[in-house]
């Protein structure tokens, strides 16, 4: 079974948790075994959101995941990027995993910051980027994510 890793950033952006559940649902539908790596607080949000583990079956602390990850541990990397630190984490995982297939979901309220995050990702990765000015409302991201994930399914 193909394996996907979803990276969550700081959970202060409200759109992240519902998008994480939604992305897990979509990737599971494409046949991936999905693991979500996050901070303890982001993990608590997922646990309350999905108490029966209907969508999210596998969760792991982001630091231990990074320390134990190696080349070819996963087939697909999906990262939520809405802070500078999340760019750094995504790029680091991208290189540690030597990942061939990846997607960064970049969102921010501020257009300049959004552009900066995209530039930083483009500078050091060849990842697919899905971006939108968003913070509370996940819909702009979900619409673009759906288009991108549809293309992934066709590959």
């Amino acid at each position, binding site marked *: 079974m193909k394996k996907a890793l979803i990276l969550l950033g700081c959970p202060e952006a409200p759109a992240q948790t519902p998008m994480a559940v939604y992305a897990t649902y979509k990737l599971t539908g494409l046949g991936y075994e999905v693991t979500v790596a996050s901070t303890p607080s982001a993990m608590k949000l997922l646990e309350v959101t999905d108490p029966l583990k209907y969508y999210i079956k596998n969760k792991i602390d982001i*630091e231990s995941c990074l320390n134990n990850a190696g080349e070819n541990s996963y087939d697909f990397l999906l990262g939520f990027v809405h802070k*500078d630190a999340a760019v750094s*984490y995504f*790029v680091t*995982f991208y*290189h540690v995993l030597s990942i061939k297939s990846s997607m960064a979901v970049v969102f921010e309220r501020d257009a300049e910051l959004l552009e900066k995050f995209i530039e*930083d990702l483009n500078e050091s990765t060849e990842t697919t980027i899905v971006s939108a000015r968003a913070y509370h409302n996940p819909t702009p991201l979900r619409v673009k994510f759906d288009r991108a994930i549809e293309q992934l399914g066709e590959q």
Partner: protein
Amino acid sequence: MSFCLDTYLQESENYEILISKAGFKESKKFIEEHSSKVMYVNAGEKILGVRIIGIPPIPIGINEDKDTVTLSYTKPCYGTAVIELPVKKEEINNIKSLAINPYKK
């Protein structure tokens, strides 16, 4: 037991936070401007027992007179800090062995 940066920062006060809650590129520039020697490593290399996080090439400042290293330290909710801490010669040698370039400056 081998050195672990996370444990060290929790249990020791013998380190200096030079900047905090910064972006990675700001931290990189700070290390480059404030270190007598700078080495660069790839993202995810194990430095002081943990994988270093950032956009490669990632700078590490080395002060061989004081036996200290200056490096970026990133956490998801707190951004990037630059810390300087004393290390053993063997840790400096380990960083040298992982360096993409031997020296800059």
